[in-house]
């Protein structure tokens, strides 16, 4: 594990009286593969939004490659190398599947053809290349999730943040994305995933962060964290002792 690549320092986020994220700090090293888990409403997506700039923290700061990026716009953070997907797919419905991915590819390729080639390569990786010419609005929800991944990949990001991209996918599709994530990580990409599927989390097996009601309650390897009684409590409720 190398030095901190992307991280947050004592970040809190309040919406009115609700504390969505409470004084959370963690750092992700370059080339790491980190899973972020926790029950519904734990603040995982809020944390993602703070990392990529859709939300600004109430307190604390976001650090990327040694610089404070807390005040940078999402588009600027994307240009710095943060690529993300959304939990609720943000499909550009009037564009084709290829054009959706091209929107990401334009970040580093201004020419139409180059952008199309980069986009198509990304679509191949998520298995959507055969639908390149179709309107993205015609895709199923599962396909839209994969398209989200393709658009993020087309940005050729250094850090990839995937928000529940496996949800609603069948087993074959899940395996495909798992393999893809592992391959990308192998190739040197830093990856943070929000995931509910514990099988998938085990497959990634490296580092797992657990968020519960806005608090970071565990941080360690998958086997360690998943046998932690606090984590089990958070997920399936307290046992009677």
């Amino acid at each position, binding site marked *: 594990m190398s030095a901190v690549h992307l991280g947050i320092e004592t970040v809190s986020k309040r919406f009115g009286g609700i504390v969505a994220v409470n004084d959370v700090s963690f750092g992700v090293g370059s080339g790491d593969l980190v899973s972020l888990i926790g029950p519904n409403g734990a603040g995982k997506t809020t944390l993602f939004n703070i990392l*990529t*700039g*859709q939300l600004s923290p109430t307190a604390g700061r976001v650090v990327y490659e040694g610089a404070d990026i807390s005040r940078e*716009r*999402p*588009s*600027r953070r*994307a*240009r710095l190398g943060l*690529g*993300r997907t*959304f939990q609720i797919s*943000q*499909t*550009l*419905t*009037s*564009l084709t599947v*290829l*054009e959706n991915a*091209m*929107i*990401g590819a*334009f*970040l580093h390729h*201004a020419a*139409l*053809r180059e*952008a*199309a*080639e*980069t986009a*198509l*390569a*990304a*679509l*191949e*990786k998520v298995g959507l*290349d*055969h639908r*390149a*010419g179709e309107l993205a609005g015609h895709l199923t929800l599962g396909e839209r999730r994969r398209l989200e991944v393709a*658009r993020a*990949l087309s*940005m*050729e990001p250094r850090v990839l943040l995937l928000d529940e991209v496996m949800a609603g996918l069948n087993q074959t599709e899940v395996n495909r994305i798992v393999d893809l994530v592992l391959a990308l990580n192998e*190739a040197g990409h830093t990856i943070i995933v929000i995931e509910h599927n514990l099988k998938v989390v085990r497959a990634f097996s490296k580092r797992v962060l657990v968020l519960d009601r806005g608090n970071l309650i565990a941080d360690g390897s998958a086997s360690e964290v998943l046998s932690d009684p606090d984590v089990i409590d958070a997920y399936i409720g307290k046992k009677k002792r």
Partner: protein
Amino acid sequence: MRSAAGPVPDTRSAVDGVWTVRKELPIWLAVVCGLGLLVFLLSGQFFYLNLLTVALLFGGLAVSWNIIGGYGGQFSIAHSVFFAIGAYTAGNLFKHFDISPWISLIPAMVLSAGIAALVSWPVFRLKGPFFAIATMALTEVAIAFAMHFDLITGGASGLTIPYRAGLENMIFQARWAYAVLFLGYLAAALAVSVIVYRSRLGFYLQAVRDNENAAEASGINVLATKLKGMAISAALTGAGGVFYMMYVRIVEPAGLLSLFDVGVKIALIALIGGIGTIYGPLLGALLLIPLDYWLRAFVGSAVPGGNLMVLALILILGALFMKRGIFGALKQALDAVWRRQ
């Protein structure tokens, strides 16, 4: 992050299927030549030639509007303001300084783009109908300004420029010359529209229109993209104002900045013709301008306001059944036939 496996043969066509400016060029040329032929055929027919001339002007304006209104999805009904800026710039420079309108095109476009960017900056925070309403307010402010600064606009009685025929003055004796002039304007606007649509900016504008969240996360500066689209759109609209000034030689604020006869009309033409498509706004102008004239003459004279009622009905039907206007509906029908074969 290229795939190490190399290109897959059967998907190469997807990349080849991406329409570049070069591929669009023959279509653009065919459309312009076709319209040129129409001008030629109608050159002896006074009435139809005039109708075509106005249709070509509004075609150019609607194509310009479409860049921000269609591709960018920012429904402005304030384009009459940029149209007026162009007209007043050319009119005053010609009247007081004897500057050729061909030269005035440059300050007219720069001024239109500059003012457009300036006033859009705060307004672009508003979305959807709120943006449209803000642009409507902008038109009202512009009328008040135009009435007040009568040194520039001639106030309510209008700005008149002297008749001095000649190519350098953009004033012609032959009526067909204006048809050719407006065809040239339309061709230029259409060319810019094609270049924008088939470039990164065009894609970015569409991404912003479809989903600002996704656009931002993809590294698109949403505000800068909107401002660029608006500036280009306004510059072209300002150029249209220059040509219009030299065509009518008298303009007054109430007509030039009229919400219904200019601002809304431009948007309406693009909307009915095919908002967000390259050629839809042109098609809309070619159909709607003659229809509007005909409705005014026959329906409007029989039932006051009847022409507007018919136009409103067309708009409602269009909004309900043709999301991409007449052009989009035609394309869809053709695609269906194509697929059946």
